């Protein structure tokens, strides 16, 4: 939709998957790649990437964690890229933190430099880290998504769940207190959302595995409030949030809430669907909870599906 006389160069993004998008968050990777393909943007996976340094690394050995994150950024820099897209919130935060701490603390910068130097990698601290939500909002924008959307939404209302790491403490993805960019993008393509009060509350992180009584309780609250706010499904931008909310519904059903069936989708799945992506290439078949609901919403007979 470029203006006359203006030749838009197609966007290309260098992409850091991290562990989640290759395992529990496979649907995120599938839908992310499909969505960008439908948007006409190229995505190249960073070669030879390693663990981002999140999980327990940061708590046990801070300098190792920074070195791991910095290696990925240095690899990106070596390709000549200025930016690196990190869709997983944990990866995003660790990469951002590494950039920030190298600037702020000489000690961190020095230990990272030494590590990079030994590996023969560039030591400058210059690659910008970006999250897909911020890319979609600033590089593409609601209007462009709207103009490229080809489907009519046939599902229910969604609660946009941002979680913690993508919006705090760094505020480039969205407002830390009241993020609203997911809503802006979804509403633009005709997907209704609700005012979800717990949009930035904790999903429990790894507590679902370590102290399930606490972790699952948090997930129960998030699901309960989404339903109370009028949502029938939740949409997320983080593989850990998605996994926690999606995977423990059976346990919550057994414990307290017999009828619980709330699909938990990635933003890229919903936008990819609206842009014309198909069921499997968006990883919609991978949903654990609410699969039946999704089938009902998104596989209406072809003739009924109103193309815009």
């Amino acid at each position, binding site marked *: 939709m470029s203006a006359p006389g203006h030749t838009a160069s197609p966007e290309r993004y260098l992409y850091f998957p991290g562990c989640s998008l290759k395992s529990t968050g496979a649907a995120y990777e599938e839908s992310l790649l499909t969505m960008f393909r439908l948007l006409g943007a190229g995505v190249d996976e960073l070669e030879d990437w390693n663990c981002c340094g999140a999980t327990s690394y940061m708590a046990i050995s801070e300098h190792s964690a920074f070195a791991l994150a910095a290696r990925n950024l240095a690899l990106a820099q070596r390709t000549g890229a200025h930016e690196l897209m990190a869709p997983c919130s944990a990866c995003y935060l660790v990469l951002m933190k590494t950039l920030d701490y190298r600037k702020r603390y000489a000690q961190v910068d020095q230990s990272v430099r030494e590590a990079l130097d030994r590996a023969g990698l560039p030591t400058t601290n210059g690659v910008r880290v970006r999250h897909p939500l911020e890319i979609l909002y600033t590089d593409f924008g609601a209007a462009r998504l709207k103009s490229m959307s080809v489907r009519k939404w046939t599902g229910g209302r969604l609660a946009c769940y941002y979680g913690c790491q993508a919006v705090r403490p760094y505020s480039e993805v969205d*407002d830390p*207190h*009241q993020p609203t960019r997911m809503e802006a993008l979804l509403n633009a393509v005709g997907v209704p959302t609700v005012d979800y*009060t*717990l949009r930035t509350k904790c999903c429990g992180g790894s507590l679902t595995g370590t102290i399930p009584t606490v972790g699952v309780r948090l997930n129960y609250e998030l699901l309960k409030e989404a339903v109370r706010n009028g949502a029938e499904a939740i949409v997320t931008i983080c593989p850990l949030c998605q996994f926690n909310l999606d995977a423990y519904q059976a346990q919550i059903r057994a414990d307290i809430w017999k009828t619980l069936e709330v699909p938990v989708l990635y933003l890229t799945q919903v936008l990819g669907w609206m842009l014309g992506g198909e069921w499997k290439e968006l990883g919609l078949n991978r949903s654990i909870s609410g699969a039946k609901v999704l089938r009902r919403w998104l596989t209406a007979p072809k003739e009924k599906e109103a193309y815009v």
Partner: protein
Amino acid sequence: MSDPKGRARVGVYVCHCGTNIAGVINVKDVAEYGATLPNVVVSREYKYMCSDPGQELIHQDIHEHALDRIVVASCSPLLHEHTFRTATEAGGLNPFFFHMVNIREHASWVHTDKPAATVKARDMLRAAVKRVVRHRALETRSVPINPDVLVLGGGIAGIHAALTLAKAGKKVYLVEREATIGGYMAQFDKTFPTLDCAACILTPKMSSVKAHPNITLWTYAEVTRVDGYVGNFKVEVTRYPRYVNEALCSGCMQCVEACVYKEGRVPDAFNFGLSKRKPIYMPFPQATPSVVLVDPEACIDFKSGKCKKTCIEACDRDAIDLKQAKDVQQITVGSMIVATGFQPFDVKRTPYYGYGRYPNVFTSLEVERLVNASGPTGGEVVGRDGKKPKAVGIIHCVGSRDKNTNAWCSRVCCMYSLKLAHLIREHTEAEVFNFYIDMRTPGKGFEEFYQRLLHEGVHFIRGRVAEVTDWAHDRSEDGKLVIRVEDTLLGTVRRVPVDMVVLSAGLEPREDAQDVRRLFNISCATEGFFLERHPKLAPVNTTTDGIFLAGCCQGPKDIPDTVAQAGAAASEALSLIDAGEIELEPNTAYIEADHCSGCKTCIPMCPYSAISFVAERDQVAVNRAEINEALCKGCGTCVATCPSGSIHQNLFEDDQIFDEIAGLLEFAR
């Protein structure tokens, strides 16, 4: 008085300013260095040069050492240039044979590297000594002070200042942007700590303003241009059309009754949108002047031209004039008082407190209207759902003492929150919880009021509230607003369920404070409140002579402080007026007549139209530009413009500036 060889004889005085300068700069070293400079006869250091003994040193030295030039290295010329010029004059010299070096604001206060700051002070001193040698004797001129005063803003500050001046027999123009005077005080219910009714004490003053023969009241008007200088400001006031002839309207309200809208449809700003008004309306019953106005954005006739105009029919005085245009007035005043007030912090900037999301979250000003007997609910404290609350939470410091919003303490919120707590309890018997960081009650009767509230059973929880949410953790919280807070006295996180939340919004500079600042050529502090000339000793003056400050435009303050400050501003204006005339700095431009070629380049450049071209005089051809000294403000534009370099400016002569620069660049030997 110069020495036998005809050289200047300079006296140098370096001030310690206690430890303000001497704590950073080696004053002794600078004074010793001064003694080595060419033309310097005496160079001394002294603890406080501005003190009487300090000034006495200057007189004595002028006599004993036959000095003819004086340099004082101390603070800003803004503070003491006048002092030292007077001392120079008292010693028998022309006051303009003096020059001041600011080694405090420009060196000791802004540097931490002591040796480097000392070197800088030496450099500045050297430049000043070179400059002062070039100084010439100048005469000051006096202009009469116009006794009329402009007061900008019709809140309690502007009202009090205007009345004080009017009572002293001075003519006052009171200009207010809104359709009525009264300001925020008119919207308050009671005032702390005495709980007397705000309207009862304010409205008589409002009527006095309207009735006073010395006050010209222009509401719905703005100052759109300011020219001139102290004693003689030329001000343009634009009066916006209210579509009602102010001279004819009696405020009978029959037009409002007759409006084709049977019910109000537009959010009523006076009640912060808690009620609706019609397109033709009176801002509030005691509005002053008591004249209705038409809102062209809401009136059908303005939008479609197809209204029955029942309002016009209803008016038996033919006061409604839908074709009214704006009216521009030009006035001349000698002094001005800026009393433009504050704006409440926009609580939407703290989204975690839920304003605009949860209907029963209110701002403190909205609650002022709710508790008011003539407010939108007739004094019933009820939520937007119409229900009377059983528990109310008041959150202090919303938009105050928070580096994410405004860093400063807004000074009035603790006290007005206590007042609202008392009133809400009185009206509803609800449990009231105050969430505070610190209780700040430093005023007459304030602490006693706080003690009274403690005994009345109002709850106080120390801690900054994290969020207001409707996320219930158990049945007791269902349907409630839950205030989540760390109680720092108990050392635990608490959840307090309530039915209504009041956000005690702080005070901040008005959105257009920067525009007003530029219009009046005054200064703002970094946070945007107007800056007084000196925080202790000139608290109502601005850096522009003849312009004074009153009320919250200078910083947050309560009603007693505002009224006191307004009185002070009025008395400063009175002292200026009663002096009758004022001395002006002789920094005007002049033309070297023999060099002027009559090219006229300078004439259109002059912003004050002070330059004219004289073709002939007494039938003799002149063909030169001439500057009217009375109109010249010394801006220097023509000096820089003149292609032949024949325009000069007193106090800023080329040789003075060049020598000053040369002195600065001549690095210490």
